[in-house]
């Protein structure tokens, strides 16, 4: 291989904040060659996102960066704004980890995808829009011609992510920094996105830095892998070598925690009481072009006490919407939700406390579901305090305990969401939900931003809670391996309908519907 495209030498990033200084990245060095795909895996909060942002000079003012970043012989750290601008989006572009907050809420997505084309390639707006539609099609967004007029708040999590990807590859950059680009995508779409990246890589020598916690994905597409922990690179090398003969103990632990290798827990007895009874739910949204769009269509399901129900299906198929209906955040057009036989559909603004105590939800978008002004401690302590779940004297203790449960370092307690990594935010959300000590937990992609070790620990935690307290879980995920290892029952969503349901062993081992089969086929494996 000739001269590397990107050379990162001794990158150091630290943040000044009120609490003092955080050293997020230390002495990181790596190269990316032309046409190479580099994977970065590692612990949540280990500095993966920060490193990527540092490359494009996108860190907040509070960050101080040192070291050397060279992109085809230009020192990016030495460039002025205009110089950086020329490179951003055209030569090097980035897919951010929280797609939701990284899209302008007031601009239609079509325009957001066409922007870089207009500015880097002097495309006329109509040309750019046509190209944007093409890109959106490439990232598997359905009906891109109509979708271009949608606004971010009208899209599902996975759709937003694909919009981000489309915008990033719009100008055919040389290097793509993809920070967890497929976390919110179901496996079929994920597979196609990965395929797309691969084909861009093959045809246009697109180099990619792929940040992911999904080792299988990394194994599938990456030439080389870097493993990060505590802001440092602990191991790097050829993908196969790192994955099949990991040297560093952390890497070994990472591979160990891969869901496929976890023991499958025996299904609980199916004769317990019915906990949740969702019947014939229809949900409609006003669609951008006028008229309505049916997000859920006659959805019914039953969840028994202590059971874990996996919800899988393509992005935008209505999984989160279902969760919102159960939580009373979205009012269905028709249908009913019963908890232990009692209807819990809310008419008033305030949700019934007795129901909330029993049913909790972890939101898909970890960042947006945290009040930007609350520190981690405040976020977790608030429900405990308000509902007097623990005596005031025990409050600190309980918060610390919850943070420990989700593997959050106690030093993060005073941070605000903007100062956390994606996975850290997600765990704050989990801790907050668990603080309520619910009987039913709706977990909407709770592991999407977590590295596998922590993922494994969280799953272990949930399993423990199921055993000890009879917790029931609705587990929305696109990670079929995880669903297989964790759930008893599963429903498969497609376009707002349940296309298949039943015991995990049945549905996932012998799928009846072609869609389910396709889903299974797309699962990346190590």
């Amino acid at each position, binding site marked *: 291989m000739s001269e590397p495209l990107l050379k990162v030498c001794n990158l150091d990033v630290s943040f000044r904040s009120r609490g003092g200084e955080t050293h997020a990245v230390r002495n990181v060095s790596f190269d990316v060659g032309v046409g190479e795909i580099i994977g970065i895996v590692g612990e949540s909060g280990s500095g993966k996102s920060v490193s990527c942002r540092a490359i494009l000079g996108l860190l907040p003012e509070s960050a101080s960066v040192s070291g050397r970043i060279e992109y085809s012989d230009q020192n990016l750290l030495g460039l002025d704004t205009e110089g950086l601008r020329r490179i951003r989006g055209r030569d090097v572009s980035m897919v951010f980890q929280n797609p939701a907050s990284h899209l302008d809420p007031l601009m239609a997505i079509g325009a957001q995808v066409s922007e870089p084309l207009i500015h880097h390639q002097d495309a006329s707006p109509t040309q750019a829009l046509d190209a944007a539609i093409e890109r959106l099609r490439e990232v598997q967004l359905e009906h891109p011609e109509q979708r271009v007029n949608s606004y971010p708040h009208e899209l599902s999590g996975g759709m937003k992510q694909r919009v981000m990807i489309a915008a990033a590859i719009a100008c055919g950059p040389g290097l793509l920094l993809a920070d967890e680009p497929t976390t919110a995508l179901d496996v079929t779409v994920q597979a196609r996105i990965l395929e797309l990246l691969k084909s861009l890589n093959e045809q246009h020598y697109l180099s990619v830095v792929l940040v992911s916690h999904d080792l299988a994905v990394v194994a599938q597409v990456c030439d080389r892998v870097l493993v990060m922990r505590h802001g440092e690179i602990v191991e790097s090398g050829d993908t196969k070598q790192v994955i099949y003969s990991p040297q560093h103990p952390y890497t070994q632990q990472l591979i160990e925690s891969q869901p496929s290798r976890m023991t499958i827990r025996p299904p609980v007895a199916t004769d317990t009481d019915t906990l949740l009874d969702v019947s014939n739910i229809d949900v409609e949204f006003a669609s951008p072009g006028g008229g309505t769009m049916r997000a859920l269509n006659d959805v019914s399901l039953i969840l028994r006490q202590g059971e874990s129900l996996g919800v899988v299906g393509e992005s935008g198929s209505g999984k989160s919407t279902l969760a919102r209906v159960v939580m009373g955040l979205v009012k269905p057009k028709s249908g009913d939700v019963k908890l232990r036989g009692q209807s819990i559909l809310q008419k008033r603004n305030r949700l019934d406390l007795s129901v909330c105590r029993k049913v909790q939800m972890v939101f898909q978008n970890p960042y947006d579901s945290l*009040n930007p002004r609350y520190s981690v401690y405040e976020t977790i302590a*608030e429900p405990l305090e308000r509902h007097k779940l623990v005596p005031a004297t025990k409050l600190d203790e309980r918060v610390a305990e919850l943070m420990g449960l989700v593997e959050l370092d106690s030093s993060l307690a005073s941070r605000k969401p903007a100062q956390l990594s994606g996975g850290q935010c997600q765990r704050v959300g989990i801790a907050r939900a668990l603080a309520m000590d619910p009987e039913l937990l709706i977990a909407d992609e709770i592991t999407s931003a977590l590295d596998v070790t922590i993922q494994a620990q969280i799953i272990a935690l949930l399993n423990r809670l199921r055993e000890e307290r009879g917790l029931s879980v609705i587990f929305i995920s696109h990670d079929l391996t995880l669903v297989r290892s964790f759930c008893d029952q599963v429903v498969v969503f497609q376009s707002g309908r349940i296309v298949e349901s039943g015991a995990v062993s049945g549905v996932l081992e012998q799928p009846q519907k072609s869609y389910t089969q396709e889903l299974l086929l797309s699962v990346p494996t190590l």
Partner: protein
Amino acid sequence: MIARWPKSLRFGAGIVLLWLIAAVLAPWLTPADPYAIDLDNTLRPPGGDWLMGTDHVGRDVFTRVVFAARIDIWMGVMGVLAPLLIGVTIGLFAGYFGGLFDSVMMRIVDITLAFPFLILVLAIVAMLGPGITNFIIALALVAWVSYARLIRADVMVVKNAEYVQAARTLGFSSPLIIFKHVLPNTISPIIVYAMTDMVLVVLAGASLGFIGLGVQPPTAEWGAMIADGQAYITEAWWVSFFPGLAAVSFGIGLSLIGDGLARMLRIGDT
């Protein structure tokens, strides 16, 4: 604590604090009685016995400027606090709940906005009698509307934010969500506006003084002093200049505080 305040906040707070001290210590800081007239020494220029000269009835302008801080600070604070509290509360609830409450409140807003300030003040002054308290009552009755409208617009957006929905799923009561989650994320423009508004309130007093319905003579109040003095602008500029200067400095202090607070409240800004 203070060391971490933005510079503008420290500076603004300093100015306002100076005025507060001046207001409290007014009797000790000034050489004369703010109300004592002296027909032998009217319209004396600044200098000598009179630091800032004397006005048309021979009162010491400096003394009056210092004493006026008492009224003006009180007027500014009360004239903003009352409408702010009312307006923000109503705007929050109306925006958050929407529906009938919102419709009714917004209609009341429309109705209130339809009354030019002057009518209300005149009516209230006529009904309750002239005076500063009634002026503030009139102000509270009108000005809350601006706050309500401003905050409501933001609430409409924030209430759909996921963290607010998350708070709802935690079974928090609506007031709690409104005050602890929605309010902090919508308040910063309000605070900026409130600081501006405080200046405007002091000025509204002056404008009313211009049509003769502000504070009652002989109360020392910057706006009224400017209004009284403007007639002498060519003959004795100092009569209106110094109270004007005082008002401007106070206004600068307040705006700096507003900027500083906004900066402190802004997310991710250090």
